[in-house]
Structure formats: structure tokens, C-alpha cells
């Protein structure tokens, strides 16, 4: 109930009203969201395909992962910023949409996984880590971010 009150407040807030009133601005935020999702997808795939030994096998995986993580953070910041604006315009609808909650759960899992598991692990020298650990991290990462994107897309269909 308290959560619904928050979503009602969000939709009636200035942010929510702006998102509702300016269709063009909303579309630009959606585009920026999609753009940054592509960037995030690129950085995730770059790192994970390297860890799986599919791409850049002759480049140290530390180098690939460190470079990709910088742009991952940029993409994630834009996704979160634009996402809040997009939700604000249709907050009550989102509250009642199952796929919105699936996406939020997947997103929270993805963020926690990256900053609590993946990065601390990849900050170490990859040569010292067992290959199966690196590969497992890569597969888990691809699965969790695929789920975020797929459930996000399905919000609009349900």
C-alpha cells in the first residue's frame, strides 16, 4: 500500500506531469534509454564474450573488462536517469504491471551482481582465477542482462 502511495505521488509530481505532458520529450528520453541500453549491451557482451574465450583471445581479459566497465557505468547511469523519468509518466500503470516488477527485480539483481560479484572478481589478476569461475560469471552476466532487456521490452506489451 505504501509503495502504491509512492507511485501515485511520483505520477502526480512535477516529473510525472512533465513526462505526461510533453510527448516529444518523453520520446527523447525513451530514445536515450534505448541508446544507453545498446551501449550497456555492447560492454556486457564485450567483457563476457572475452571471458568465454570467444572474442579478443589475444588481448588480456583484464584490459577488455576494465575498458568496458567504464562505459558500462556511463550507460547504467543514463539508463537509470531516463528510466525514472519514463516510469514517472506512467507510474501507477507500472505499479500494476507484473513485467515492470520482473524487470526491476532483474535490474537490481544485475546491478548487485556487477558491483558485488563481477567487478570485485575481475579486479583481480584473471590469470590467477580458475577459468570455470570466469566463464560462469560471464554466462550469469549475459543471462541476467538479457532478462533485464527482455522483461523491459515486455512491459509495453502487457
Amino acid at each position, binding site marked *: 500500500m505504501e509503495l502504491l502511495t509512492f507511485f501515485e505521488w511520483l505520477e502526480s509530481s512535477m516529473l510525472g506531469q512533465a513526462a505526461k505532458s510533453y*510527448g516529444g520529450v518523453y520520446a*527523447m528520453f525513451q530514445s536515450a534509454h534505448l*541508446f544507453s541500453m545498446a551501449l*550497456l549491451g*555492447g560492454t556486457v*557482451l*564485450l567483457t563476457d564474450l572475452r571471458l568465454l574465450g570467444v572474442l579478443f583471445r589475444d588481448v588480456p581479459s583484464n584490459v*577488455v573488462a576494465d575498458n568496458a566497465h567504464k*562505459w558500462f557505468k556511463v550507460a547504467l547511469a543514463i539508463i537509470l536517469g531516463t528510466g525514472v523519468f519514463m516510469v514517472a509518466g506512467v507510474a501507477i500503470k507500472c505499479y500494476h504491471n507484473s513485467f515492470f516488477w520482473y524487470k526491476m527485480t532483474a535490474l537490481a539483481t544485475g546491478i548487485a551482481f556487477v558491483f558485488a560479484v563481477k567487478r570485485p572478481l575481475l579486479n583481480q589478476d584473471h590469470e590467477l582465477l580458475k577459468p570455470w569461475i570466469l566463464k560462469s560469471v560471464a554466462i550469469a552476466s549475459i543471462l541476467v542482462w538479457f532478462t533485464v532487456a527482455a522483461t523491459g521490452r*515486455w512491459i509495453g506489451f502487457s
Partner: protein
Amino acid sequence: MINELLLNFAEWLGSQPSSQNLIGSFYMWNWIESTHVLTLMVFLGMLFVIDLRMLGLTLTNVPATKVNDRLNIPMIIGFAIMITTGFILYYANPVHETQSIWFRFKVVLLVAAGINAWLFHRALKASSGSWDMDALAPKRLRIGAALSLGLWTLVIIMGRLMAYDWFDCDKPQGAFINWAVGCNIQ
């Protein structure tokens, strides 16, 4: 003349039973649309990394041509699926898309992005590898990379705007817009 041809073609496509089945199928249409968006992430994700490398903004300690060569394959796989699903989505609703100003802009921008990609790869092949380990690619390639980022950003915006009906044929609008959208064809 061109509007009439495009509309006739779209109406013929739209009259095909498989086109009508597709637009009427909730799950099939949604799966194709989702695949289109997800593979856009694969294609553009790889493209962005290549462009950012040329601009000296990532993987500067990896040879630029290596980044381009290695990411080309996943990028092309993503592109192939994205463009195929894009054609299927057009096939599902051809008349509406043909009369969408955003779709028309999107097609023009896609052609421009394609020409830019061709020029970029031609310039990349022609350039000597002496700069390969430099953080910044030669100016011509940097311009190509920046144009690529700009054009694909606009393609995304147009794709997103296609969901909006501001210039649909049932809206009261000027003669120029009607012509640009391909409305009022007798």
C-alpha cells in the same frame, strides 16, 4: 507518383494472409519486435565500441583495426537478425509504416548510415597500419565514427517516434506534411 507506388505496394503486401496473421498474432508480433530490439543492442553495442575506439575513448591499448576486425562478426550477426526482423515488422503493418513520416526518415537515415559504414571501411582498408596503436584514429576515420554514432542515434529516435501518431493520415495537417507522409492519394 512515388507515394502512389509505395502505397500500392504496401496495400498489396498488407493484403497477404500471412501479413494479416502476423499483425493479428499478439505473441508472434511481440516476439519479433522484442528480437528486433534485443539484436539492436548486439549490433549497436558492438558498433559503439568500434566507434569509441576510433575516437580514442576506449580500448586505446588495443590496435584499432583489431577491435574493428574482431567485433565485425558479432556486429554483422546482430545486424542480420535486426534487419530481418525489421522487414518482418514492416510486412506485418505495411500501409501504416509506409504512411509514417518517422519510418520514412528512418529509412533515409539507414541508407545514410549504410553509405557512411561503406566509406568508413573503405578508408580503414586504405589507411596504413602505422596509426593502429595510436589512441586516436586518423581524422577521416574519426569523422566516420562520429557520423556513425550520430546517424544511429537518429535512427533510434525515429524508430522510437514511430510509436507516436502525431502525423498520421487521419490528423488534420498541411499539404506538405500530407505529401511527405504519402496521405490523400486518390
